[in-house]
C-alpha cells in the first residue's frame, strides 16, 4: 500500500510540468517622470510612452518565452508628477514589483535607490547617462542599461579620429548637462588623439524653440556664430538641452560637418538600425506601438529582457536570484548589436556598442576597428576598471 502510494506520488511529481501549475508571476515596474522633453526638431519629439513602449515589447517577448517555462511577466507604469516624492513612490511600487526600470534624472534615481536599499528591489537605470551614477555615486542595487556620456563621447571620438577629422571646433551650451557632455567629449579628445582648436559657448538667452519666422533668423545667426574659426575638420557640439546644435548643419561659416548633439550623433539605438537581425525587433516594435523605436525604448527593452533572461536561466522570479545571476560571470544578453552584452562588474554598467547616426541612417558602429583592449573592445568606451571611482559595498 505504502509502495503504491510512493509510486503514485512520484508519478504525479514527474507529471507536474505537463499539468501546468500556476505560473510564476514576475512583476516589473516602470518609474519615470511625467512630461515630454523639449526638442528642436518636431520629428524628434518623444512620444508619451517613450521608453515604456520598449519595456512593453520586452514583456511580450518575455511572456512568449515564459509560456514554455511557466513564467508570466507583468509591467506596471508609474509616472511622477512635478512635486511627487520619488522615494515614496519607489517604495510603494517596490511593494508590488521586485524589479523597477527607472527613467529618472540622476538625483531622483539615487533617492529611489537609497529608499529601496534594504528591500532587495533591483533598479535598472534605463534613462540616466550621468557618469557619476556609475562612479562616485554608484549603488549596489542599481544596474545601468543606458550608456554613459563618456561612452557616447568615446564612440564618437573614435570614429572622428578614424576618419582623420582630428581638429575640432568645439561649441558648448550653457546648461549643466551640456557642460557634462562637454567634459566627456574633452576627455575623449585627449584619449583618442583629437585636438580642440577652439572652444565657444552658445549662451541660451531664452526664447521659444519654434517661431513663425525662425529659419530666416537662424540662417543669419549660425554662420556669424561660427565664423573666424581656426582651421578645423569638424564642428563638435555639446547641446543636450536642445538649444542650438540642430541649427548648425549646413549653416556653418566654413563648409564643415557637424557632430555631437547634431549631425553625426552617438546613440544606443536608432529606428534605422537593421543589422544583426535588428530588422526583426524593429518590425515587432512598430507592429505593437505604431511608431519607430527610440534609444530610450531600446534601453528599456534591454532592461526588461535582462530580467526575463535571468529569470529563464535561474528558473526564478526572485529579485535576489535574478540580481545575483545578472551580476555573475554567466550573464550575457543579445540585443541586436552584433555581439553579446555583459556587465562591468566594477560598476554594474552594461557594455554595449554605440551607433553613430545621421538622423536617417546608421553611419557606423563603435568601437572602431583598431581600438584594442585586453579584456573587451567594448571597454574602450567609457570609464575603464583602472579609472573607476565606484566602490560597490
Amino acid at each position, binding site marked *: 500500500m505504502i509502495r503504491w502510494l510512493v509510486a503514485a506520488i512520484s508519478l504525479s511529481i514527474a507529471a507536474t510540468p505537463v499539468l501546468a501549475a500556476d505560473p510564476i508571476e514576475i512583476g516589473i515596474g516602470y518609474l519615470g517622470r511625467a512630461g515630454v522633453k523639449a526638442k528642436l526638431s518636431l520629428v524628434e519629439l518623444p512620444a508619451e510612452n517613450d521608453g515604456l513602449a520598449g519595456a512593453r515589447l520586452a514583456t511580450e517577448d518575455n511572456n*512568449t*518565452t515564459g509560456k514554455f*517555462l511557466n513564467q508570466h511577466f507583468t509591467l506596471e507604469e508609474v509616472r511622477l508628477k512635478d512635486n511627487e516624492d520619488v522615494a515614496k513612490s519607489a517604495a510603494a511600487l517596490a511593494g508590488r514589483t521586485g524589479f523597477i526600470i527607472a527613467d529618472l534624472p540622476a538625483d531622483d534615481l539615487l533617492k529611489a535607490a537609497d529608499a529601496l536599499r534594504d528591500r532587495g528591489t533591483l533598479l535598472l537605470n534605463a534613462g540616466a547617462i550621468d557618469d557619476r551614477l556609475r562612479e562616485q555615486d554608484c549603488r549596489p542595487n542599481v544596474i545601468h542599461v543606458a550608456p554613459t556620456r563618456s561612452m557616447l563621447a568615446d564612440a564618437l571620438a573614435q570614429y572622428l579620429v578614424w576618419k582623420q577629422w582630428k581638429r575640432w571646433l568645439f561649441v558648448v551650451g550653457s546648461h549643466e548637462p551640456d557642460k557634462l557632455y562637454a567634459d566627456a567629449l574633452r576627455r575623449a579628445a585627449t584619449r583618442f588623439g583629437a585636438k580642440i582648436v577652439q572652444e565657444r559657448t552658445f549662451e541660451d538667452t531664452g526664447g521659444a524653440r519654434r517661431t513663425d519666422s525662425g529659419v530666416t533668423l537662424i540662417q543669419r545667426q549660425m554662420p556669424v556664430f561660427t565664423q573666424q574659426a581656426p582651421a578645423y575638420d569638424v564642428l563638435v557640439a555639446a547641446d543636450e538641452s536642445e538649444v542650438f546644435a540642430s541649427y548648425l548643419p549646413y549653416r556653418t561659416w566654413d563648409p564643415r560637418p557637424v557632430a555631437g548633439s547634431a549631425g553625426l550623433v552617438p546613440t544606443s539605438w536608432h529606428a534605422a538600425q537593421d543589422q544583426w*537581425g535588428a530588422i*526583426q525587433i524593429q*518590425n515587432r516594435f512598430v507592429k505593437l506601438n505604431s511608431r519607430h523605436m527610440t534609444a530610450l525604448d531600446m534601453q528599456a527593452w534591454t532592461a526588461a529582457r535582462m530580467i526575463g533572461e535571468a529569470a*529563464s536561466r535561474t528558473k526564478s522570479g526572485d529579485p535576489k536570484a535574478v540580481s545575483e545571476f545578472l551580476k555573475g560571470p554567466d550573464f550575457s544578453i*543579445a540585443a541586436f548589436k552584433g555581439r*553579446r552584452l555583459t556587465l562591468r562588474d566594477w560598476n554594474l554598467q552594461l557594455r554595449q556598442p554605440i551607433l553613430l547616426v545621421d538622423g536617417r541612417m546608421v553611419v557606423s558602429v563603435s568601437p572602431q576597428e583598431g581600438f584594442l583592449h585586453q579584456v573587451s573592445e567594448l571597454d574602450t568606451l567609457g570609464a575603464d576598471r583602472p579609472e573607476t571611482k565606484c566602490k560597490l559595498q
Partner: protein
Amino acid sequence: MWHRCLLSGMAVWLAAATPASAFIAYVSNEKSNTVTVIDTESWTVTKTIKVGQRPRGIEFTRDGKFVFVAVGDDDSIQVIDVAKQEVVDTLPSGPDPELFALDTDGKVLYVANENDNTVTIIDVEKRARLGEIQVGVEPEGMALSPDGKILINTSETTNMAHFIDTTTRQIVANVLVDARPRFAEFKRDNSEVWISSEIGGTVSIIDPAKRAVTDKISFNIPGLRSEAIQPVGIGMTKDGKTAFVALGPANRIAVVDATSHKVTKYLLVGQRVWHMAFTPDEKYLMVTNGVSNDVSVIDVAAQKVIKTIQVGELPWGITIAHHDGH
C-alpha cells in the same frame, strides 16, 4: 587537323567521364538578390540566377530537380528549376522566412518565420499551407531528426531549442541553450543534436532522448576576443565522426571531433563565415563568407582550404547536389 580531332575527342571523352563526381552548388546572395551556381569540377561560376529579395535559406529538393530558396523580404519561398536555371514557382510561406527543413520524402516543408514567432508547414506538391506552430521569439534554425519524428526549431530571442512532434505538430519539449541559437544539426544515428548559439559563442549538444543539454563546446582562438567568436552553421560527416562549425566574424571554421566534442583545428576562411554544405561524396565542404563575398572550398580529408570562389554580394546559404539531380 587530326590533332584537333583527337583533342576534341578527348574533351568529349573527358566530359563523359566526369559526371560521376561533378556536382553543382547553389549559393544564395543575401544582398544582391541572386543565386550563384558553381560547378564543383572546375570550381567556376556557371550561372547567376535572379531571385526575390533577401535570399537566405536554400535547399535542393530530394529529387535534385528543384532548389528552394527563402526570399525573406518577399515573404515567400521561390522554386528554381535546376534544368532551366530560373525561378519557376513560389511557395506560400509565412512572413520573413529564413531557414527551412524538408521531410525525408520531400513532401512537407517546415519553415521558420522570423517575424511571426511561428513555424509554417507547407505541402510541397499542393503548394498549400498545412498549418502553423507557435514557437518562441524569432524562430530560426530548423532540423528534422533522422527518423523524421521530431522537428527542432531554435528561437533566437527566447534562446531555446523547441522539440516538435511532427505527427501531432505539438511542442513536446523546450531546451534552453545559450544566447541567439541559430542552427540545429542531428547526428545521423539520432544520438545527438547540435545547436549553435551565435551570441553565446557556444555549441550545445543535446541528447534527443533525454531532451537535455549533455555537453557544450566553447571555442578559443588565440588573439581573438571571445565576443568575435559567433558560431552559426554546422556540418557533420555522415559517419558522425567529424563536425565543422562556422564561427562568423572570427573568420574561421572549427574542426571538431564529434565523438569527444573537442576542437582539433581552426581553418582560416573568408570574412563572416555563415553556412556550409558537403559535396555528396563528402570530399569537399563549401562555406559561404558573408563579408568577403566568396565561398571557400575545404578538402575534408586533408582539413585544408584549397580554393576561394568569388560569388555575389553577402553570400549566406549553400546547397549541393549531383549534376543530374540526386
